[in-house]
């Protein structure tokens, strides 16, 4: 497993430098923009794409086929991508978190509750892309997987709009904000674990040609 992570680390150093640069610029800009959360969340969203991009490079170099000849289980191959994803997501999360905490402290408006909410939302945003995309990629390959991902996102967005228009003013007013937050956190973690499990199941069934 260490070999898989090391290989991905070498690839990240080569192919993901631009991500690091963009993340640094966006984190810096977020320090000076008042209410625009785009600059806070975008680096998180971006780093969620890293495992998928690494899989794209793997597919191009036929590493998927070659890894089938090495002493790795399919579970290890899938888990390697989730772990390298988590590593990059946590790195960006910590960097963004430190920057936002510093900004709040300097502006004398640091509140632990607000900060925790922000961190939690960033965690969900950074893991959501790979949570949804990776099972499709492990089942169908990178190209077809990406297409399936876009279709899935379309359905999720459509369903969200429909649900919010139906439920507006009914349920939301009755639910405590803390409860919503807890539900979102549990759902985010649950989706990530389910995604990891499904990717292993799909990849075990897939024949590597």
């Amino acid at each position, binding site marked *: 497993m260490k*070999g898989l992570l090391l*290989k991905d680390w070498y*690839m990240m150093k080569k192919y993901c430098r631009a991500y690091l640069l963009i993340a640094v610029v966006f984190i810096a800009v977020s320090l000076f923009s008042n209410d625009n959360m785009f600059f806070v969340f975008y680096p998180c969203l971006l780093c969620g794409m890293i495992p998928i991009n690494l899989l794209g490079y793997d597919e*191009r170099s036929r*590493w998927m086929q070659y*890894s089938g*000849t090495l*002493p790795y289980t399919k579970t290890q191959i899938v888990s390697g991508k989730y772990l390298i994803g988590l590593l990059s997501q946590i790195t960006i999360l910590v960097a963004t978190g430190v920057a936002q905490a510093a900004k709040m402290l300097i502006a004398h408006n640091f509140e632990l509750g607000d900060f925790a909410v922000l961190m939690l939302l960033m965690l969900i945003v950074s893991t959501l892309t790979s949570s949804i995309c990776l099972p499709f990629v492990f089942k169908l390959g990178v190209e077809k997987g990406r297409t399936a991902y876009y279709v899935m996102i379309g359905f999720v967005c459509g369903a969200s709009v429909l649900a919010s228009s139906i439920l507006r003013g009914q349920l939301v007013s009755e639910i405590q904000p803390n409860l919503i937050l807890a539900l979102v956190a549990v759902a985010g973690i649950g989706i990530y674990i389910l995604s990891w499990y499904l990717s292993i199941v799909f990849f075990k069934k897939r024949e*590597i040609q």
Partner: protein
Amino acid sequence: MNALEIKNLTKSYPGFTLDNLNLTLPSGCIMGLIGENGAGKSTTIKLILDMIHKDSGSIIILGKDNTDSIELTKEDIGVVMDEVGIPECLTVKQVGNVMKNTFRNWDDAEYARLAQKLALPDKKQFKEFSRGMKMKLGIAIALSHKAKLLILDEATSGLDPVVRDEVVEMFSDFTRDENHSILISSHIVSDLEKLCDYVAFLHKGKLLLCEEKDQLLAEYGLIHCTAEEIQNLPAEAIKYKKENPYGIEAMVLRSAVPANFNVSPISIEELFVFMVKEAR
């Protein structure tokens, strides 16, 4: 112990079936898998490595069923596929670091020695390698983790004749240890002829034969004669014949040919071509 035992192996795709394949590779031997494009050589190798799922049959590698923790068995298998799938940005040194953390028995010194012997560039990225260099890196990896079985799928293709000869020599050295074995598929039948103890002919997913090379060469021969002369040969002696403007060329069973006929030696390539034509 046998290095590899394949029994009744079957795998079907739309338009292709690998049909009831039976092969046994004894330890310390080299077996050449010969077949035209699409004969089922790569399918067989992928089934052995459990990269694709068999429909039926059994595969025993180094005494263990290939569905039973094959990742552990793969520690003892060196594989070179027709395309070496190393990430394009890695250098030889980085590949060594990755493999060191992949194989329990990785031998850094042997890898460095082979990289030097095969003239692999230190600083270049894999994407800058020629096809021949890529194959050489694959071979260096396969030979650097104390494997007991080498599985080589077109591993000598893309190499120039001098390097190919060196590599064939390396494979030959590998089997000096009686616990080491090789299963090799190649289009370059001359390499297999030099190297192999056993040959297996695959044609359209079916095994035409699997025999010791020397026995095959002793068993079969070639006769060049006229149409009248061939009438004097017993029918059971002629396995296949083809006519050309200069007469008839026939693949014959030496034991059934009368003593007055001059039988020339047959090469493995000629034998394969004749057998495929006979099968058609």
